[in-house]
């Protein structure tokens, strides 16, 4: 594995399987009474969050603490830290504190790449702008694998705002690496113009794709996209691309429903679909801690250069 985890594309198939297998072993730690391993004693993990994301930060924090790492939370949101100059200065500060890993969430695509130039520790991308969110993709793949077994040849449909989705980008790359067949479904306005070059299929017709899907992953639709005329109205979006009960019924009986959260219930996903037994939405959260433990262990658990 590379020193950093910035893009899901950085992972070879062996890397990805190693992370998933490691997570499989670590899953039991969450179930025992002492949910802690001594492995990363003396290591320092900094959570550097330039965007609010309590869920992701807590997930990384729990993962690091379960491995006995020291965790420093650095929330840059709300402070004057918004210009890039400060990203570099912040990086130098973290360097001085001896951070072995920096988990970064940033509103600018590519911020983790830049950070990696300025720190010696491992950089873990916890979501950068509209670029990638590799640990989300890993936890999604982990959740799928626990439900469905190996992902080779599985039909996975990702629905929604692909253009602005870091989750979609990371999933397309990772699931492709793992041998799954990914189909993106979205209104054409919410797909990159170059999506034809991506290693996946593209469709504008959700109803046509659903009956052939083993997994349907619904992406969150940001309200602000509506103002920018990506689609006419919430109602129309929901009618054409929302996963309601009727559409849910078109899915194969053993197919599962995923959502990276937070959900707009009634918009991209109906409440009863989100809460059904075939929804992995709740276990995705628990799996998030496990997969992040695996990532931190594999990046920091051995010798460091």
């Amino acid at each position, binding site marked *: 594995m590379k020193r950093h985890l910035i893009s899901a594309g950085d992972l070879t198939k062996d890397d990805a399987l190693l992370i998933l297998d490691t997570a499989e072993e670590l899953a039991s730690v969450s179930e025992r009474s002492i949910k802690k391993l001594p492995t990363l004693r003396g290591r320092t993990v900094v959570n550097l969050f330039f965007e609010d994301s309590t869920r992701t930060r807590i997930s990384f924090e729990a993962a690091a603490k379960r491995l006995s790492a020291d965790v420093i939370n650095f929330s840059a949101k709300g402070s004057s830290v918004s210009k*890039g100059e400060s990203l570099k200065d912040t990086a130098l500060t973290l360097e001085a504190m001896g951070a072995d890993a920096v988990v970064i969430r940033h509103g600018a695509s590519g*911020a983790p790449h*830049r950070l990696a130039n300025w720190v010696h520790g491992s950089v873990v991308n916890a979501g950068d702008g*509209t670029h990638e969110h590799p640990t989300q993709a890993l936890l999604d793949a982990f959740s799928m694998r626990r439900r469905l077994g190996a992902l080779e040849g599985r039909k996975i449909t990702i629905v929604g705002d692909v253009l602005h989705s870091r989750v979609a*980008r990371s999933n397309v790359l990772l699931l492709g690496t793992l041998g799954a067949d990914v189909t993106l479904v979205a209104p054409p306005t919410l797909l*990159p*113009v*170059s999506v034809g070059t991506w290693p996946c299929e593209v469709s504008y017709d959700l109803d046509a794709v659903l009956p052939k899907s083993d997994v349907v992953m619904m992406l969150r639709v940001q309200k602000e996209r509506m103002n920018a005329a990506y689609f006419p109205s919430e109602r129309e979006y929901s009618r054409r691309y929302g996963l309601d009960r009727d559409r849910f019924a078109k899915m194969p009986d053993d197919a599962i429903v995923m959502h990276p959260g937070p959900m707009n219930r009634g918009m991209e996903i109906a409440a009863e679909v989100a809460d059904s037994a075939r929804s992995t939405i709740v276990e995705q959260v628990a799996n998030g801690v496990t997969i992040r433990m695996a990532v931190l262990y594999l990046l920091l658990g051995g010798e460091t250069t």
Partner: protein
Amino acid sequence: MIIKNVRILGGEPVSIRIADGVIAEVAPGMDAPEAIDGGGAIALPGLVDLHTHLREPGREDAETVQTGTQSAARGGYTAVHAMANTSPVADTAGVVEQVWRLGREHGLCDVHPVGAVTVGLEGRQLAELGAMADSAARVRVFSDDGKCVDDAVLMRRALEYVKAFDGVVAQHAQEPRLTSGAQMNEGVVSGRLGLTGWPAVAEEAIIARDCLLAAHVGSRLHVCHVSTAGSVEIIRWAKSKGWNVTAEVTPHHLLLTDDLVEESPVGAYNPIYKVNPPLRTRADVEALRAALADGTIDIVATDHAPHPVEDKETEWSAAAMGMVGLETALSVVQEAMVETGLLDWAGVAQRMSALPARIGRLPGQGRPLEAGEPANIMLYDPSARTKVDPSAFASKSRNTPYEGMTLPGRVVATFLRGRPTVLEGKLV
């Protein structure tokens, strides 16, 4: 003064005798004890840049008229057009005269201020174009560069109005709504990197509209930094109609592509490649080279855009757009156009000196190296190979995308009206 052993436009070795800032004689074999030995270098008329950001007044931390003209001289330039997007904006006779005077005081390179088209570059009201034209700075080129004059009526009026003093409107073609928040060329790479796309059509649509407007009102249009194959097609079409449209391309758009944002020796998302208009694709680069070769694109202009380190050592979206270019321009043109066989040295002189001087209406620049012409001369050794070292730049800024690259050629000397500003590659 005699400059001996130089090859004008790459021809046979000759000597050039200069008296009172004018070329007195060009002939083989002339010598004198104090003669400057060109060592077989190519002699070209001093280069003329139609598109330079000198940053003074307002951003003297990035560049000043002094350092900018030093940089120009080191690049072989004897005249530059200083863009109007300073602070305050060069939208009055007072500001353009100040910049012009600073250029004269430093005396390294003629500085011709470009006047803003609209007050404060705000695109609402025409600036006092006539006053700037009549000022000591004799402004002939008007541009809101950095911003597009996107209001069609305002653009029409500007094109019409500058006819009174033989001015030209140099348009920064960028449809603002199509490029809101745009970060890089919209295409395969932007889609992968999750950076907001900057579609080619945002440039092409404005160019098409402006060509039609220029034709309609019978005025001169100059298109700044053409960057797409589609723009080339539109300009070719406009020229075929006989319309008075000229266009420039920057050295970086002749050499670099948008893949560098994803993969380069300086790492992904390095804002050293962030520029407006953005780096485009290989197909665009090929089209631009062909267009410059066949004259569809008239000239090379640097769009020298200095920025301090802290404006580039950031995450991509926070970084400033632009690259310095004066000191590498000819080398890049050699690499992209001469080494590829697309242009000879006469063609280079035409596109980097004669035509930009003509578009800018500079009578004393861009003239052939003949007896009786002003002694604006640059000497260039095309056989040299230089590893680009930004710390050696005369520019105050270091934001070059070529750092560490080995480029062909070296500027040996520059003469401004007979007076050397650069000798042995060093400022005099």
